[in-house]
C-alpha cells in the first residue's frame, strides 16, 4: 500500500461515523447501469430508502431490482417526500450496481415521469456534507 492510498483510506475511517451506516464497498461505484422500468414500491424507511423497480430482462421477463437511496432524514431536507416515487411510475434510474451481479444497486440518478432529475443526494444538486 502506498502512503497516499493509506492516507485516503484513513481519512475515510476518521470521517465515516459521520456519513452513512455502512461503506459503499458492496457497490461498484466506478460502474453505472441504466434501468428503465416501473416502480413497484418505494420504501420510505431508515436507514435507507429503497426503490423496488420492475425491469424487463433480455428474455422479456420482468426482474425486480432493489435500489438503495439515502435515509428519509437526509432526503427530506432536499425536498424528497414519501410519494416522490409512486407505484406504477415509469422511471429511468441509473445505479452503481452490486458487485455480486445481483439485481440491486445504489441510486446515482433518477428521471421522474415529469422529467424531473434527482441524484444520489436527492433533490439537491450540491455536494452534501
Amino acid at each position, binding site marked *: 500500500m502506498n502512503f497516499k492510498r493509506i492516507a485516503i483510506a484513513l481519512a475515510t475511517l476518521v470521517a*465515516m461515523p459521520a*456519513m452513512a451506516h455502512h461503506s459503499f464497498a458492496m457497490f461498484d461505484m466506478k460502474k453505472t447501469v441504466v434501468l428503465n422500468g416501473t416502480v413497484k414500491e418505494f420504501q420510505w424507511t431508515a*436507514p435507507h430508502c429503497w426503490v423496488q423497480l420492475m425491469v424487463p430482462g433480455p428474455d422479456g421477463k420482468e426482474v425486480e431490482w*432493489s435500489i438503495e437511496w439515502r435515509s428519509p432524514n437526509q432526503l427530506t431536507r432536499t425536498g424528497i417526500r414519501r410519494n416522490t416515487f409512486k407505484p406504477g411510475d415509469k422511471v429511468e434510474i441509473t445505479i452503481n450496481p452490486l458487485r455480486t451481479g445481483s439485481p440491486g444497486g445504489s441510486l446515482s440518478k433518477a428521471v421522474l415521469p415529469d422529467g424531473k432529475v434527482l441524484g444520489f443526494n436527492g433533490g439537491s444538486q450540491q455536494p452534501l456534507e
Partner: protein
Amino acid sequence: MLRSVGLVLVFILCAGAVSAAERSKTPPKGLDWSGVWLHRSGVKIDPVTGAPSMPKLSPADLPKLKPEGQKKLMDTLRAIQEGKPFGDGAECKWPGVPMIIRSTMPQEFIVLPDRVVILYEMESQIRRIFTDGRKVPGPEDLDYTFNGFSTGYWEGDTLVVETVGLRDDTSIMIGVGHTEQLKVVERYREISPGLIEVEITMTDPGTLTEPWKSKGTFRRQASDYPILEYNCHDNNREGVDAKGVTVTFGPDGKPL
C-alpha cells in the same frame, strides 16, 4: 510576620475564589445554544456519483495505538484498499460516545441550570451531562453503556464534559476499539456566533499509547430546520456475515 501571613492568606483565598469562578455549575449569563446544530465533517458527497471527498489528514490527526490496535486498523485499511466490504456499523448498532459526538445528523442542545441535554437525530439518542456537581458512581456501581456517564461544568463560556463507563464493544473510530478504561473529555465553546467548536481528548491506557486529541465544529441551523426520527432497525437491508463482510438483502429478506 503576621502581616505577611495575612497577605499570603488573602492571596490563597483570592486564588481559591478565582478557581471556583472558573468552574461553574451554570452557564454564563446570556449563553444561548438552543436550536439545531449540524456537524461540519469536511466530507463532501458528490451529488451524481455519491463519491465522498475527504478532508486532508495529517499524521497528528490519528490515534497512537498499541500494536494489537494498529494491526486491526491495518487489516481494516487493507479490506478497504481491496474494495472489500467490511463490518462497519451495517448492523445498526448504536454508535455510542465518542462516535456519536460528530454524527453528521443534526443535534439539539438544551442547556439547563443543572445539566446539558443533547438530543441527537442519530438513533434518537439522548445524552444527559450533569453539571450539578454529582459524582461519578463508584467502581461497583458504574455501568458500562453506549453513551457512558457524563458529568460536566462550565469554565467561563466553555462547557467541559467528562465521560466514563463506556462499554468496550464500541469504537473510537472505524476499525479501532477501546477498553473500559476509556475516558472522553469534550470541551464545547462558541468560537464565533453560530459556530461551536468541540475539542475531544480520549485517554485509554488499554488501547492508546498517548491521549488522542481531535476537533469538530457545529453550525447553528435555521429555527425550522427539521430534526426527524431515525430508527436504523426499521428496515435495515444490510447485515454483516461471519467473515465481517456486508451483505445486502432483497425485499423478501434473502441475501441478494
